[in-house]
């Protein structure tokens, strides 16, 4: 039970410190799998959001909204439109983390 509560708290809580690259990748993959019913093994860094994961413009904004809730960052910027792969998403979070004090 406490595991569930802890992970729920972590999921909802905003990051108080910068996340490491591997932690960000883990979170991005977790969000993608949960929000879009994807299999974890399909969500690799090189996976293309549209062609491989069948995500569209509505999904991109939903993904940003979910990541905002989890990281405390504000992602809705034009660079969202340049995200093509899972790695691009991770890079955007890393980049914003450096710019925005959370």
């Amino acid at each position, binding site marked *: 039970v406490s595991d569930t509560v802890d992970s729920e708290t972590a999921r909802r809580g905003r990051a108080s410190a910068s996340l490491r690259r591997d932690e960000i990748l883990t979170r991005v993959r977790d969000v993608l799998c949960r929000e879009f019913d994807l299999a974890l093994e399909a969500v690799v860094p090189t996976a293309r959001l549209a062609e491989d994961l069948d995500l569209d413009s*509505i999904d991109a904004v939903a993904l940003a909204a979910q990541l905002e809730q989890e990281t405390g960052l504000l992602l809705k910027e034009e660079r969202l439109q340049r995200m093509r792969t899972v790695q691009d998403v991770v890079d955007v979070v890393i980049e914003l983390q450096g710019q925005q004090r959370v």
Partner: protein
Amino acid sequence: VSTRPRVVVTGMTGVCALGAGWKPVREALRSGRSGITTIPEWETVEGLHTRLGARVTEPLDVARLGRKKLRGMGRVALLAAQAAESALADAALLGDPRVSDGTLGLAFGSTSGSPPSMLAYARAFGVARSTRGVQPTDYLKAMSHTVAANLAQLFEIRGRVIPTCSACTSGSQAIGAGVEAILLGRQPAMLVGGAEELHEIEAAVFDMLLATSTRNDAPARTPRPFDAARDGLVVGEGAGALVLEELGFARARGARIRGEILGWATSCDGVHLTSPDAAGMQRVMELALADAGVAPGEIDYVNAHATATRRGDVAESAATHAVFGARPPVSSLKGHMGHTLGACGALEAWCTLAMMHEGWVAPTLNLEQVDPLCAPLDYVTAAPRAQEIHHAMSNNFAFGGVNTSLVFRRWSEGQ
């Protein structure tokens, strides 16, 4: 001389607190089984008096629709989807290419978008003043035409899509919009209906106007349309859907015809946003009879809107009496299934057509002693009544003074 096209019903069904499809709903209407329950979680809403609602208890079979079809659908759209899919199946049109090639149009309404998503969207902008964390799908679930938009996507409909969101006439105006599209020759077939999702924001509107029932300890005994002891309406949820077709089109594809929509009228009181107006109600019934070319004496059953509010039932009974006198049997289905708001026009049209086909009339549940302030009508009470019905009328009235009236004719081959 061109003759007016004829509009027939080839598919129809619904889901409400009484069940999904005609079998359980028929059983409930005949046996006096109520769909009203207490809603304990409404106790946490400060100032809300009613704790009563008519909730759909069947699980909605939606997982198979897939993520992209489901992501913009709140419960109101899911209820509509269930009814619409069953209606298309009833019309033997599921999987037919004419659903998606522009032949079929759509008219569907609900009081509003899905309330939980409305609240989520409003909270983000109205309270937090931020786009942070806002899901675009919340807007798609909350927007006024969410039901029509989602159904069109679900069935890949390429004909006209008309949202008819006028509160308690959403469903009946959808039927009317479908009739008019067919009469104008714009679509040979229309999928029409209405839906509603149970939520306290809808109950609260009526509650604040002191129009809800607060018999919170006796859910099965309320609402009580036309009854002297009625104390208001009970909101409910559900969806009704019908497939309408031009007669020649239906015959050419060998469709099973369930009834004919002979007359349709909609009008406005033009007086008050919420107060019922007997003159406006009377006028819409007369307009529908004129549209049908049927005399008042030919109507064998009137399915009343009658939500069990103090003033609404009195006004409606007076209007009905002014048009018909005391002759035709009259009943309201709200005692069984509550007031399903955006769904009621479609649900009541479906049930009226089904009862007409089977030759009986449902009683008004909980109508034990007719209010002396209500006009003297032939109120059907206590038990279902065997009744040959050649023509029936179904009436609905909404906030805004919006009135609708539909006239149905029983179908027999050779007509």
